């Protein structure tokens, strides 16, 4: 929507926190894409002569138990985190939106079936179910992604379903039907564009959640396996040396916090900007 897009951009620009979030995400993306050219040292190659160096000029974040540069590993960790969260959010958005569309549009028994399935998944505490799944599949990044996708698509399904139920009663759906549109056509061409706003917001917020969840699983040893530089496994690794070398945990911790916060800031900002009610503007 041309004018609506403009309006959303305008509102977003006014929201300083959202802009900060956007800037942080851009920065993280930049780090992830250009990691090989930015990092000062090899993130994987051990250098046993330089173990546990405190932050200094050459190693701004110090070195770990194998003498590897923590800064380089944190930068490479951005790659892993963003890759995982983007693929998982992509997968769950597609699954959730599809099921939500079907459920909301057709209603009846199909809706009942899909929603009870959603309830079943929701009945488990997400991260624990993901742990169980990842544990059963065996450790590894791919399995973590699979596990997270399996437990977190429900939000999309529910949000989309409820929006679809409101939109499908609108007159333009009837008028589309009067023109001879098929159900599939109406669902994809007419209803989907009308329910995409909450999906975008949810996807942004979920990015942060997935980064956090993936880091948790890695911390527990289920995610990225050494020597892959991953924030969660770096935390786990540094835990042992917390007293002597706190920088091993502090910097990956800051990275996780920053990334999660960035996506939450942007998500909240988007939610406010896409809110169709104009009250927020009146307040100013």
């Amino acid at each position, binding site marked *: 929507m041309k004018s*609506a897009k403009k309006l959303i951009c305008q509102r977003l620009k006014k929201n300083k926190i959202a802009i900060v979030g956007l800037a942080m995400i851009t920065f993280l993306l930049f780090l992830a894409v250009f990691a090989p050219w930015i990092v000062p040292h090899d993130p994987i190659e051990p250098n046993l002569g330089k173990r546990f160096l405190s932050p200094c000029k050459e190693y701004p974040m110090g070195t770990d138990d194998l003498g590897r540069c923590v800064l380089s590993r944190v930068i490479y960790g951005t790659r892993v985190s963003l890759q995982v969260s983007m693929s998982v959010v992509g997968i769950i958005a597609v699954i959730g939106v599809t099921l939500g569309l079907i459920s909301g549009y057709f209603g009846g028994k199909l809706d009942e079936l899909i929603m009870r399935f959603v309830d079943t998944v929701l009945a488990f505490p997400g991260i624990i179910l993901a742990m169980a799944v990842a544990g059963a599949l065996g450790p590894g990044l791919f399995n973590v992604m699979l596990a997270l996708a399996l437990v977190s698509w429900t939000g999309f399904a529910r949000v989309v379903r409820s929006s679809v139920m409101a939109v499908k009663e609108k*007159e333009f759906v*009837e*008028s*589309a*039907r*009067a023109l*001879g*549109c098929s159900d599939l056509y109406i669902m994809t061409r007419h209803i989907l*564009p009308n329910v995409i706003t909450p999906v975008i917001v949810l996807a942004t917020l979920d990015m942060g959640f997935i980064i956090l969840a993936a880091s948790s699983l890695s911390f527990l040893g289920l995610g990225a396996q050494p020597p892959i530089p991953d924030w969660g496994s770096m935390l786990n690794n540094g835990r042992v040396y917390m007293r002597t070398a706190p920088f091993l945990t502090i910097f990956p911790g800051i990275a996780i916090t920053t990334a999660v916060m960035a996506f939450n800031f942007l998500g909240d900002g988007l939610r406010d900007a896409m809110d169709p009610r104009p009250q927020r503007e009146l307040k100013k």
Partner: protein
Amino acid sequence: MTLLSIRDLRTYFYTEDGVVRAVNGIDLNLEEGETLGIIGETGCGKTMLGLSILRLLSENTKVEGEVLYRGTDLIRLSKAEMRKIRGKEISMIFQNSLSSMNPVLTVGKQLAEPLEMHQHMKKQAAKQKVIEMLKAVKIPSPSDRAAEYPHEFSGGMRQRAMIAMGLACTPSLIIADEPTTGLDVTIQAQIIELIKEVLEHSGASMLLITHDLGVASELCNSIAVMYAGEIIEYAGIIELFKNPRHPYTRGFFGSLPNRGLKPMPGTCPSMINLPGGCKFHPRCPHASSRCEKEKPDMLKLGEKHYVRCFLYD
């Protein structure tokens, strides 16, 4: 030649409060090139009749009877076959042009839909055709307007665009459900002119659903007056205005400002709990005991003038 022939059409809804009898056995014929007006009060089932013809009603509805379009019974067509009729053979123009258009698609895209669907036009060709269509319904600078969203159009423009959409595939029958309601009087007049022109140009027939006698008199050849889901009087336009016979029709005309503004007492009966006998008898000034018990049949009063009332028995 008869284009549309409706035989004993009945539409029922099953609701928690009971069965809603929205259409109660309607017989109608629509000739090729004819414009037939369906008039009646709010809630008499006019819109339901229109939706029943195109089978656009929800799952909890039951439609009985026959709707013969060029000899094919629409009620018995499969869903896929019905989709090929909608928009291509029979199209519908809705009342509220703002809510009847998708707010997140441009007008041009929505107008192109029937072309892409029924005539399998390529995007570029459809775009060109859309601009022609918008020009035909007198929308200024059509190529710019096609890229705009429905809310950027004025009410009259949107209604023009709706008409263009209804005509996209040159249908033989157009069902127009209150096409001028909600527009101000000057725009109403323009839209009526446009519809007239368009009908003349395309030779299509139209079923005009309205409660506005003025609009009906401008556009229709004949009129069917509907009350509580039944046709109670049917006549040519001039005959009906000169010589309304049914007490309800008379009351309807009497409530016009230039004929004394005498509103009829009471309202349309609830479609769940319809009165027995003649459905109008509780409001009828001439009601007798016979009207309460028996249901009057359609009586022929003259050539093309039928009425459902015992007064003329």
